[in-house]
C-alpha cells in the first residue's frame, strides 16, 4: 500500500501526508443475496494464508465460532421469525467495517500501528503493533483479535494488498452469487439503491443500506432486508458509535490530563520559588511534652516504642 496515501495514523498528532486524491472504495455485502456458503471465509484464509484450528460444532452452522487472529471474516446465521410468522434465515458476513472514524485507530497507543488509507481502508501494521488490545476496546463492532501466538492484533485488511494493485478483495472475487461487490463507495451506494428497490418489490418494506453515520460511515456496507433492525443480524449494532467510555478514555481528556500533570509539576516548582522550602530551626527549644493524650489519635496507642531501639539500627 506504499502507493496509497495514509490519511490517518494511530497515536500520531500531526497530519499525515495527504495531498493525493483517492476515490473512496467500499465493499457492499448484500445479505439478501448471501447464501451463507462460506466461500468468502475460505477465500480470505487462502489469500491471506491463514489456517485456523479445526474446531467443534456447537449446535449451529457458524464455524469458526468467532473471529480470531486466523479468521478475519465469518458467516453469522440467525433464525428469525418475522411478524407474519414466516421464518427468515438471516446470514451476515461479519468482519471489519472499515469505519470512516475508526474506533480502533482512536484507541491505538502505538504510532502507525493502525492506519487509514485515503481510499477508506483501515489497516493494521503488525510491525508497529504492541499487542495491547486497545483496538478491540475501541472498535464499535468488536472485530480485531489478538493472536495468542504473537500477541499482535489482526483483522480484515479489505485485501489492501490486492486493492493497491487494482484487484478486488478475495472474498468479493470468490462470492458465487454476487452478494459481495466492490467498487467506489458512490457506485456501491447506487448499486445498493437498485437492490433496495427490488427488495421492496418483494415485500421487504424496510430494506435499506447499512452505512452508519455514528462512525462516519463505513467502507464495508450491508444491504439488509430489515434495515430498521440491524441487530437482528447476529447483533449488528443498530447505531454504532465509538463507545462513550472510549471517547472519554481517548478523547480530549488525555491531553488535558497530560496538561494537568505538567501543571502540577510547575505548580510545585513555583511554590518552591515563591514560598520556599519549609525548614526546621534546629536550635528551637523543645516544648514541654504534652500530656493531653486524649487529643491524640487512638491509632497512636499502638505505636511500638521498642522499634527505634531495635538492635542493628545504626545512627547517622
Amino acid at each position, binding site marked *: 500500500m506504499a502507493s496509497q496515501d495514509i490519511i490517518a495514523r494511530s497515536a500520531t498528532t500531526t497530519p499525515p501526508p495527504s495531498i493525493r486524491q483517492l476515490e473512496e472504495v467500499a465493499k457492499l455485502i448484500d445479505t439478501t443475496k448471501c447464501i451463507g456458503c462460506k466461500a468468502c471465509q475460505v477465500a480470505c484464509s487462502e489469500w491471506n494464508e491463514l489456517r485456523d484450528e479445526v474446531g467443534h460444532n456447537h449446535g449451529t452452522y457458524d464455524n469458526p465460532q468467532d473471529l480470531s487472529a486466523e479468521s478475519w471474516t465469518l458467516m453469522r446465521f440467525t433464525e428469525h421469525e418475522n411478524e407474519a410468522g414466516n421464518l427468515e434465515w438471516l446470514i451476515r458476513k461479519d468482519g471489519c467495517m472499515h469505519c470512516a472514524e475508526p474506533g480502533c485507530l482512536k484507541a491505538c497507543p502505538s504510532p502507525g500501528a493502525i492506519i487509514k488509507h485515503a481510499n477508506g481502508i483501515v489497516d493494521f501494521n503488525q510491525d508497529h503493533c504492541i499487542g495491547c488490545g486497545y483496538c478491540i476496546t475501541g472498535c464499535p463492532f468488536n472485530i480485531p483479535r489478538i493472536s495468542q501466538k504473537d500477541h499482535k492484533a489482526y483483522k480484515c485488511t479489505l485485501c489492501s494488498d490486492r486493492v493497491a494493485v487494482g484487484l478486488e478483495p478475495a472474498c468479493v472475487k470468490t462470492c458465487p452469487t454476487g452478494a459481495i461487490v466492490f467498487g467506489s463507495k458512490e457506485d456501491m451506494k447506487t448499486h445498493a439503491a437498485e437492490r433496495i428497490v427490488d427488495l421492496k418489490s418483494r415485500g421487504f418494506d424496510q430494506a435499506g443500506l447499512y452505512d452508519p453515520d455514528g462512525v462516519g460511515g463505513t467502507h464495508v456496507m450491508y444491504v439488509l432486508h430489515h434495515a430498521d433492525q440491524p441487530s437482528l443480524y447476529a447483533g449488528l449494532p443498530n447505531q454504532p458509535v465509538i463507545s462513550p467510555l472510549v471517547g472519554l*478514555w481517548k478523547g480530549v481528556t488525555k491531553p488535558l490530563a497530560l496538561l494537568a500533570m505538567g501543571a502540577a509539576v510547575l505548580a510545585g516548582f513555583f511554590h518552591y520559588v515563591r514560598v520556599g522550602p519549609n525548614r526546621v530551626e534546629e536550635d528551637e527549644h523543645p516544648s514541654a511534652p504534652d500530656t493531653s493524650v486524649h487529643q491524640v*489519635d487512638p491509632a497512636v496507642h499502638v505505636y511500638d516504642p521498642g522499634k527505634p531501639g531495635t538492635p542493628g539500627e545504626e545512627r547517622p
Partner: protein
Amino acid sequence: MKDKPILRYTANERTNHWIVAILFFMAGLSGLALFHPALFWLSHLFGGGPWTRILHPFMGVAMFVFFLGLVIRFWRYNFLTANDRQWLRGIDKVLRNEEEGLPPVGKYNAGQKLLFWTLLVCMLVLLVSGVVIWRAYFSHWFGIESIRLGALAHAVAGFVLVMSIIVHIYAGIWIKGSVGAMLHGWVSRAWARKHHALWYRQVTREEPTDSQKGIKP
C-alpha cells in the same frame, strides 16, 4: 538525650517504600508511554512498545503487592481525626509555611493521610481494571463493555495516582528533612516537633529508658 534524632522509618519500611517508588516510576513511565502518543517515546526505556506492553502489567502488579506492604505497615496511622479536619481548613496557611495556629499533627498530617487513602484507592482500581484489560491472560473472561470501562478506569486511576505522587514528591522536596527521613530513617527532634508534634510527644513520652532497651514484649 534531648538532641538525639528520632527514628521515623525503619530500614524495612524504607526499603519497602523505595521499592514501591521504583516500581511506580517503571509502571508509571511505561503507563504514560501508552497513555498518550506524546509520551510513546518513553516505551524505548523498556525495550520498545511490545516490551512496554508486556512489562507494564507485571510492574503494576508488583507495585501493588509492595504497596500492600506499606498499607499493612501504616494504615493504622492514617485515620482522619477532628484535628485533621481543622488542619485541612488551614491548608492555605500550610502552603504559605505559616503553621502557627494549626492543630498539632500526629505521625501524619491530614494531607499525608488523604494521600494514603487516595493511593490505596487508585492502586485497587488500577489492579482490578488492569486485570480486566490484560489481554494476554485475562481479557477473554470479560465482556467488551467491562473492558472499555476497565480501560477508562485504569487511565483515570493512573492519572490520579500520578498527580498524587507529584504532590507527594514535591511535599518531600518542600518540607526539608522529609526525604532524609525516608532515606536514612532519622529525623531531628526539632523536625518532629515542628511537623508532627503529637507524634513527637508520643515518641518522647514513650521513649524507653536505657534499662528498658532490648526488652521486647
